[in-house]
């Protein structure tokens, strides 16, 4: 068990101009579960593969514990990886798959059998040890891939979208099993996903990447409550926060037909940037349905009834044209408005997220 740190780690694929991972700086504590999340092509898998040693590091350093592993071969890093396709060895039985790394490490046969049994017991795979991967279901294969990592008792687990080949229901249950298992074993884990729900539910901390750049690394709640920029605000949270530009006059943002007061520091920062507008976003739970005199009018575009929650997607009347709905509100499910209706919404004071229109950075 060990800490893992990226220090200005950079990867440039030959023949491409922009780095796939650009100056990544993350320190992961011993036993921590860190999730790398972002849209496809953001560099999250590349970052993980750099840590595994499957991808070269062009600049910077990667450390596991006190060891500089930047240029060490994958097999010498003492990390175990779970692949998206599981990458099980097709001609080997489950037991042989799980014991292969130990065999390569010249662990004695008795010890190997003992550790494979133990891992199989933890993962409920004992009755499948003699089977070939071909004869297993998707969920069982996923567990074998996990087992292959566990038996090694490595310094870190690396997981590259290990749940994306499972069906939706199995994904949710396996998600909590992996998180629980990781906490029990206490092994430092780096987990890559494109699914922000997975990231929020599993990680101790979540690192959001975009275009090879780290946007923010914080606890799930920290990301949700104080997104560092407009991208993180829109990426984290379901349904996603809608963010759009509003004109600013006299310290107030003109939201449709209503002036919303901005905090002093936001106004000062906007003035320093010489900006006449601001990017504002509201979490669905910060927006309330109110009477006509209290809020700004919104045309209902879509109502989503999910059972526990009902979400209203609307377009703010009087604001400039926007691609798709520009506000989402969580509303009382007993009296949902109909599509095309005009309703009035109000944002709870102080719960708006303001970002610079020039850089997208959070203003607070």
């Amino acid at each position, binding site marked *: 068990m060990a800490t893992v740190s990226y220090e200005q780690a950079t990867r440039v694929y030959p023949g491409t101009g922009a780095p796939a991972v650009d100056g990544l700086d993350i320190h992961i504590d011993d036993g921590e579960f860190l999730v790398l999340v972002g849209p496809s092509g953001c560099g999250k898998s590349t970052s993980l593969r750099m840590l595994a040693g*499957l991808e070269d590091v062009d600049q910077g350093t990667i450390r596991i514990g006190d060891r500089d592993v930047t240029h060490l071969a*994958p*097999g010498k890093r003492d*990390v*175990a990886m779970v692949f998206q396709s599981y*990458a*099980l060895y*097709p001609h080997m039985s489950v037991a042989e798959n799980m014991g*292969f790394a130990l065999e*390569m490490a010249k662990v004695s046969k008795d010890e190997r059998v003992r550790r494979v049994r133990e891992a199989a017991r933890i993962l409920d795979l004992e009755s499948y040890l003699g089977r070939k991967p071909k004869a297993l279901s998707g969920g069982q294969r996923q567990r074998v891939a996990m087992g292959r990592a566990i038996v090694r008792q490595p310094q870190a687990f690396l997981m590259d979208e290990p749940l994306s080949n499972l069906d939706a229901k199995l994904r949710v249950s396996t998600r909590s099993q992996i998180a629980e298992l990781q906490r029990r074993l206490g092994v430092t884990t780096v987990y890559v996903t494109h699914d922000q729900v997975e990231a929020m539910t599993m990680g101790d901390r979540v690192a959001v990447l975009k275009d090879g750049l780290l946007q923010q690394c914080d606890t799930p709640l920290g990301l949700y409550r104080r997104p560092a920029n407009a991208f993180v605000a829109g990426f984290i949270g379901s349904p996603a926060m809608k963010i759009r530009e509003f004109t600013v006059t006299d310290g107030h943002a003109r939201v449709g037909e209503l002036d919303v007061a901005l905090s002093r520091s936001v106004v000062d920062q906007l003035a320093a940037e010489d900006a006449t507008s601001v990017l504002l976003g509201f979490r669905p739970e910060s927006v309330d349905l109110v009477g006509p005199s209290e809020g700004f009018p919104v045309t209902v575009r879509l109502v989503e009834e999910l059972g526990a929650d009902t979400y209203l997607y609307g377009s703010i009347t009087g604001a400039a044209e926007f691609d798709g709905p520009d506000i989402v509100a969580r509303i009382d499910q007993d009296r949902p408005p109909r599509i095309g209706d005009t309703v009035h919404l109000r944002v709870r004071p102080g719960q708006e997220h303001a970002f610079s229109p020039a850089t997208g950075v959070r203003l607070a």
Partner: protein
Amino acid sequence: MTTETLDAAPSATRTRRRPEPPRRTAAERWRRRGPLLPALALTILLTQVPLLGTVYYSLRARNLLRPETDEFVGLANYGTVLGDEYFRTAVLNTLVLTASTVVLAMALGIALAVLLDKKFLGRGVVRTLLITPFLVMPAAAALLWKHAMFNPLFGMLNWALSVVGIGKVDWVSQFPMPALVLMLTWQWTPFMMLIVLAGLQSQSTEILEAAKVDGAGPWDTFRRITLPHLRRFIELAILLGSIFIVQTFDPIFLITQGGPGQATTNLPFAIYQTTFRAFEVGEAAAAGVIVVIGTIVIAAFALRVISSLFQEES
């Protein structure tokens, strides 16, 4: 009601797994078959008629030098062939020639395929050059080796040996079988290499990466992960290669004439000699039928391997 439908559903899907061909009228069936018939007729004419002719001749004692002796002798020709020292030597020579060539070509083919699987500058050119021996006409290749390589006076092999101080070797007289194996290995290595290369390129890179992370070195990865994956491809290449190499005729005819003595007489050459030197049509036909049966046995194995290959893929 609901339980009934639920119970019925799985059995219905089970029976439906192999869909029945849709019923068609006789006219429609013939409209579909019609265009294929000329090809079928030609295939029968070119393959089955000669085979039946051979079987017919194999049951008769017929020598072209004595046209008056043409009578039905049952399986006597088969007895003669199987009891004949000359044919038994030919069988043995065929086995030695085929097995050595296949094993050597496969070993070289695997080595070259592993090299070609790596990325390097000029890989396309190297690949084309390595395939070339397979594209040269067998007769042309045989003449090339006979004169340019094996010639004791001006052959390349002797020149290469003279560089390291070894004297002149008359390859075709002193080492006739190794010389033929060498030439055939040169010709068949590209075939083995191509099939093994296809196998290598069908291997998932994630599995190789998993082996790397698991701490397996290059040799362990090859032996424990890649070779088992290649097994079926290797089996297929060996079986297909064997079927072709058993039929080798051109280089033997052109380089050694089956000699010295009978040292390089294989079955096709023995059959040729029996037919066109001894004019023993009956015996030659019987030997031909025996070779066909032997080849069908090998081909059956080959087909089984191919079908299991496809099953693995799905």
